[in-house]
């Protein structure tokens, strides 16, 4: 193109100050074993506070295993063992002196299928605060707040004492999220939270995640790559190695992973040329 008048002065872009990065969860060289079988090998992941980090990868690559280590859910499976470090605000949650009950309060979890207790809507949300010994007014307040945070309040406020099992699948999943929020966690782990939901309910969960990340750190395992691309700030791609142990192949901003992945295995997976 011919420039007829080259009168424009070069103007330097203003320097953007580097935002301070706060790492909430820092998994370092984590190995995980089911008996003799190694399911995770040398997995590291630095999860930023108040961001959504997605774990993607084919079935069996250790995504859910990795997620469950973050709040020691694996303790519930006999014969399992984790090595390495998972630092939550600097404290290694894998160390024997970790108060696991408190850890799971700080790091809540939402599962693939909604699993409300066979109790009332109110009791589901009040369960955790009740166990923690909060007062009745405090519990009432937190129930309302949690249901509002999950956009469920308007839908259920007139039937709080009816069974949670009468809610739709999407509402049940949001109730489970409200139950997790009621104990004031810092981190929410989500294991394919929308895989059993219809597209509208899925969208509501995804919108909620965007709201919740202003206050919480979220780590999500998803098989739905479009969902990962839509909702997450960072994405980790995991893959089984030749010994069938899961590894983190590539981790970075979601924009980079889905537009310009560095590793050809990541590109093969996200473009559907894997297998």
């Amino acid at each position, binding site marked *: 193109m*011919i420039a007829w008048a080259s009168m424009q002065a070069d103007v330097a872009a203003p320097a953007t100050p580097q935002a301070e990065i706060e790492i909430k969860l820092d998994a370092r060289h984590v190995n995980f074993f089911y008996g003799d079988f190694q399911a995770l090998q040398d997995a590291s992941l630095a999860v930023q506070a108040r961001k959504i980090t997605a774990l993607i990868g084919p079935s069996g690559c250790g995504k859910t295993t990795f997620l469950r280590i973050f709040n020691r859910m694996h303790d519930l499976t006999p014969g399992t063992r984790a090595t390495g470090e998972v630092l939550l605000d600097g404290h290694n949650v894998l160390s024997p002196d970790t108060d696991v009950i408190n850890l799971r309060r700080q790091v809540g979890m939402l599962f693939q299928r909604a699993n409300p207790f066979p109790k009332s809507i109110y009791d589901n949300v009040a369960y955790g605060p009740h166990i923690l010994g909060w007062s009745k007014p405090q519990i009432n307040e937190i129930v309302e707040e949690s249901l509002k945070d999950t956009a469920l309040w308007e839908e259920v406020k007139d039937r709080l004492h009816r069974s949670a099992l009468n809610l739709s699948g999407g509402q049940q999943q949001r109730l489970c999220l409200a139950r997790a929020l009621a104990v004031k966690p810092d981190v929410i782990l989500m294991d394919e939270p929308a895989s059993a939901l219809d597209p509208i309910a899925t969208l509501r969960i995804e919108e909620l995640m965007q709201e919740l990340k202003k206050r919480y750190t979220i780590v999500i395992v998803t098989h739905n790559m479009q969902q990962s691309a839509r909702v997450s700030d960072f994405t980790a791609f995991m893959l089984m190695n030749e010994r069938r142990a899961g590894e983190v192949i590539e981790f970075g901003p979601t924009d980079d992973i889905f537009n310009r992945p560095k590793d050809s295995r990541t590109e093969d997976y996200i473009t559907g040329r894997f297998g």
Partner: protein
Amino acid sequence: MATTRTLFDQELAELKSGVVRMGSMVEQAIAESMRALVDRNNALAKEVIARDQEVNELHRQLRERAFMIMATQQPVARDLRLIVSFQHMVLELERMGDHAVGISRAALRLNDLPQLKPYIDLPRMAEITESQVHEILGAVIEADQDKARMIAERDDEVDVLYRRIWQELVQFMVNDPQTVERAAILLFLAKDLERIADRVTNIAEDVVFLHTGRIVELS
């Protein structure tokens, strides 16, 4: 890893071959429009104008096809870049076809008038742009970003010739008002060639984008 998207890969390959086919049609149109001028061949000029409908129709089909692939296959990363780049390339090619029509129309008007001067720089300018178009199609086929960058650099040669032609034609108009009509038509014609070279640069940028995922400015 084995390919598991045979149908998708086939659709991408067909899209690519459509882009190359459209490129060849445009390349031929540019060459023939210039020949219509130099040889004072009105029939050839009219043929180029008429054939532009085929280019436009292919453009429409390729855009529709690219849109359908995006809607149904949800491409990401290199696949998405490929489709987005192809969409942009066919737009540039369609415009190049319009420039060939512009040259042909100019030829039709000029061929009815006495020749202003022997055509020297214009055919040279056309030769460079034609070879740029030919070579950029090769870079698209081979997905060769280094080649694309080199082709884009030749835009400077075209710009130098354009400036020279512009100055010479303005001088004609200043010296002799009788030449204004012919010189003005030739100015528009030269501008068409200059814009074709610019569009080659845009396609070169698409080839780089295809590889790197970065939008670059090569001009």
